[in-house]
């Protein structure tokens, strides 16, 4: 493009060509979610320092896939307090690849998500979103609940463990580093074994209780769930989180989710408690209480 001679001598910066951003390119890249190259701060053992208080900003807990705003259960009581926002899918490719025959259970889960019945042990887990009941959320759901969690990383040979403490239900995960043994028994938060691949913490999680859900839309899995997480620092304030989910009983192939985790930057921030069990007792057990005499 030919620049007029008068414009060349002016004090204003050069105008970029149409379609080119020039100086604004860096800001635009941030605006569309691209992180510039980053070299993380390191622990004494040389690995990136993932210590901190982290939280997701996506609304994936409502629905991993694309979702409109919704009224939530019992809007006649809860109004906006029970409603959820719209959100874009965090699933790579957009859709979760269910086996056709497995979709019926997802539908039923969603329909019964706000219904509970613990009167019979045999059907204790049949109804209701486990999140509604304050059951431990499992992995990866714990990472995209709208509550903070803390990653605790030491890296000493004396303690081959990392720990993640979730505010929700005070759920805790021990990540056993470079560990051979697999889960001796199924657990709600799974059995986590970690190792480093370059600057990425890779966590292999298996041995899950089958009763956890992925979201409030009823997305679920079987006891064969296997999750591989990847935590990569991409800025001083963000981790990029990816998880590959595999469950041949429910899905036709493995699938991935991806979203950033944000560092909580409030001054003197600390996890508080969200011990939600007392919020569920009337709902679960109220019906079994002694009725007052008429």
């Amino acid at each position: 493009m030919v620049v007029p001679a008068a414009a060349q001598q002016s004090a204003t910066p050069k105008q970029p060509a149409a379609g080119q951003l020039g100086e604004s390119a860096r800001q635009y890249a941030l605006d569309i979610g691209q992180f510039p190259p980053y070299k993380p701060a390191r622990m004494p053992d040389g690995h990136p320092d993932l210590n901190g208080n982290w939280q997701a900003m996506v609304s994936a807990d409502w629905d991993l896939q694309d979702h409109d705003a919704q009224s939530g259960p019992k809007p006649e009581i809860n109004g906006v307090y029970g409603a959820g926002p719209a959100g874009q899918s965090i699933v790579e490719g957009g859709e979760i690849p269910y086996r056709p025959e497995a979709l019926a259970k997802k539908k039923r889960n969603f329909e019964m998500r706000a219904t509970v019945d613990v009167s019979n042990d045999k059907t204790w887990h049949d109804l209701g979103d486990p999140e509604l009941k304050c059951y431990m959320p499992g992995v990866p759901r714990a990472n995209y609940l709208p509550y903070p969690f803390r990653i605790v990383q030491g890296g000493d040979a004396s303690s081959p463990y990392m720990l993640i403490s979730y505010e929700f239900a005070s759920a805790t995960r021990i990540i056993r580093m470079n560990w051979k043994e697999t889960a001796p028994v199924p657990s709600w938060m799974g059995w986590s074994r970690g190792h480093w691949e370059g600057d990425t913490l890779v966590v292999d999680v298996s041995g899950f209780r089958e009763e956890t859900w992925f979201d409030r839309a009823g997305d679920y899995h079987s006891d064969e769930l296997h999750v591989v997480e990847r935590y990569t620092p991409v800025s001083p304030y963000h981790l990029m989180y990816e998880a590959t989910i595999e469950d041949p009983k429910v899905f036709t192939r493995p699938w991935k989710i991806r979203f950033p985790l944000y560092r909580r930057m409030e001054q003197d921030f600390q996890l508080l408690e969200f011990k939600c069990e007392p919020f569920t007792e009337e709902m679960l057990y109220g019906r079994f209480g002694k009725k007052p005499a008429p």
Partner: protein
Amino acid sequence: MKPTGNKLGVGAAVAAGLMLFWMGAIVPASAHHAFAAEYDAKKHVVLKGTVTKMEWINPHAWIHIDVKKPDGNLEEWMIEFGTPNTLLRRGFTHDSLKPGTEITVDGYQSKDGALRANGRDVTLPDGKKLFAGSPVADAPYKDPDK
């Protein structure tokens, strides 16, 4: 100086003193789910049945058994046990008791008459006691103190 007096005499005297002592101190009154609150000491049961399911869960593990009654009917009982975490650390895994295994359970039935009991003793057909420090099938027993 060697104190005298027989053990029993001293023990009894001190025991009385101890009772007085404890009246003035803080003593926990809650049993935190003591079995005696839920299960009936007057309803001792001996159940012979086949394991249908093992729930290896907290706060209590449960073993489900089908008990054959004299009239030929099957009764489904569930037996309450402790935390599986202790057994895991002893080397007993949740595969160690398989469905189909015949066991005899000695325990106390639930006060409300439900087909539930707490497990006091569990014996295998060969007379070996389950959950009693000896290995079951190929599960090695691990004593953490050795």
